[in-house]
């Protein structure tokens, strides 16, 4: 088994009485995308800050290794292996995009010619060549984010931490960012990503962990996590209250929602089950105005794990 890029055992952090991380365990294999999900204030950013050597863990924390280096004793070696794009823009707004890139090249001790080449190539790749000579403070949010990631890539880090990289980006910029992340992983880079967008984790991550109350509430692939919660169902919606009442009486099961005149029947969404369901509805004489099939998504998982009460989800509906 290859050496993990990141291994974390019993990570703890508290500020005074407030415990933010209460024993977090994580393992991220090399060349994979790991996504840390969690509600606001769950401590995702704190995890990234500690793993990227920005702040220290509590003394009673367990061992943490990044790129094979011990966090407690070899912070500088870790810094040489990682790249970080934090939640808040880490660009120098007073200087231009090119100057920001050259600053990174200098700090990575690239030669003058090499530094210029790398800067120009990354600015081109991130679609910033046109604005390269304008001060970064004048950039839009999406441009700043792209410059931020471009700066992170100057030193060709093998492990990259991205703290909510697409928060505040428009859909197009978000898809560009996803493309960039996929390209990085293809090149063998390990990506540690935090996000609030379950779709993003579903789209990118090989493994996902849900952080809640300072511990990992669940961890696995998106498929594994979705299997944790029962969420699949078929929804029948009626426009005529009389038809709705007739259906409720005829079917005698399912979850009623009298306000929207809809009925939810458990189903795994397979063709076989749908066919038998439709046959049953026909034989019972039920004629719904709309039938939608719901499969459980990460929203269901997230809500089930981070909140006691289940909220019916809205996304991933397929209207028939």
């Amino acid at each position, binding site marked *: 088994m290859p050496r993990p890029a990141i291994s974390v055992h019993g990570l703890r952090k508290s500020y005074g009485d407030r415990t933010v991380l209460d024993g977090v365990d994580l393992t991220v294999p090399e060349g994979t995308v790991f996504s840390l999900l969690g509600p606001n204030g769950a401590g995702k950013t704190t995890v990234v800050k500690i793993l990227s050597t920005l702040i220290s863990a509590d003394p009673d924390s367990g061992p943490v290794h990044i790129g094979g280096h011990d966090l407690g004793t070899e912070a500088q070696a870790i*810094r040489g292996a990682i790249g970080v794009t934090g939640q*808040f823009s880490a*660009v*120098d707004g007073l*200087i231009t995009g090119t100057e920001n890139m050259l600053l990174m090249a*200098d700090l990575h*001790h690239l030669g003058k010619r090499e530094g210029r080449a790398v800067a120009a190539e990354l600015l081109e790749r991130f679609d910033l060549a046109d604005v390269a000579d304008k001060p970064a403070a004048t950039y839009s949010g999406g441009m700043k984010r792209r410059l931020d990631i471009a700066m992170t890539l100057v030193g060709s880090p093998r492990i990259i931490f991205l703290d909510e990289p697409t928060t505040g980006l428009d859909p197009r910029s978000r898809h560009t960012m996803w493309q960039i992340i996929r390209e990085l992983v293809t090149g063998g880079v390990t990506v540690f990503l935090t996000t609030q967008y379950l779709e993003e984790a579903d789209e990118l991550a090989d493994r996902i962990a849900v952080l809640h109350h300072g511990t990992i509430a669940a961890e696995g692939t998106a498929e594994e996590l979705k299997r944790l919660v029962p969420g699949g169902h078929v929804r029948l919606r009626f426009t005529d209250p009389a038809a709705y009442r007739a259906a409720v009486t005829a079917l005698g099961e399912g979850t009623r929602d009298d306000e929207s005149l809809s009925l939810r029947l458990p189903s795994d969404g397979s063709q076989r089950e749908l066919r038998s369901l439709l046959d049953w509805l026909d034989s019972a004489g039920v004629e719904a105005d709309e039938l939608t099939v719901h499969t459980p998504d990460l929203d269901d998982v997230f809500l089930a794990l981070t909140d006691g009460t289940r909220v019916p989800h809205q996304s991933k509906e397929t209207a028939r």
Partner: protein
Amino acid sequence: MSTFSLAVRDSSTMLRRNLLHARRYPSLTLNLLLTPIMLLLLFVYVFGDTMSAGIGGGAPDRSAYIAYVVPGLLLMTIGSTTIGTAVSVCNDMTEGIIARFRTMAIHRPSVLIGHVVGSVLQCVVSVVLVGAVAVAIGFRSHGAGPLEWLAAFGLLVLFATALTWIAVGMGLISPNAEAASNNAVPLILLPLLSSAFVPLDAMPGWFRPVAEYQPFTPAIETLRGLLLGTEIGHDGWLALAWCLGLTVLGYFWATSKFDADPK
């Protein structure tokens, strides 16, 4: 790469960044220059006659007072410039780019060293500009040869380095720019409580030791001695001790604050 050459290389990179900032946004530096220049003109043209009569005990002699007041104002210029340093360090720390620097394998104090060297260079430029104004309104040195000028320059650089490290520490402990500029006020207040404008003998007895042994007075007296040929005495050593002491204190204070976990 050895630690030393890494330190030099990263510090010069950081210095280039700070100089770029200063060159592109010179307003803060220029604003800070106004205070010493205004004070120079105020004390020479408005108070000059009275002050010289009071100090000399004879007829008003404005040109004598120019000679007296300029060394103090040159050092005050340094104090005033370093307020800008405290503010810009504080502003810089709130920038995300500093968090990026902290997660990079660079010589850690280079971020601060870049600020310090940049600020000392700014001090030199400011002192030259204020000095030029002083010469323009009639300041002339007496009996200062190349050695004295060199020593005067060295003193100004050492003094600027010392105050800058203190200012960097003040910038680091300040939550915002306003607080930074408030915290740095002693750097511009101290010269008012020194021998910059009136000699120590003109001060009340209980206050004299305070004025005599604070960092500005020995430096001012030394500069006066070098430029005007007055008696330096033990002030030279005192000034040197203050410069080195404040530099060492400021360095350890600032780097330990910078190494602490950011909020």
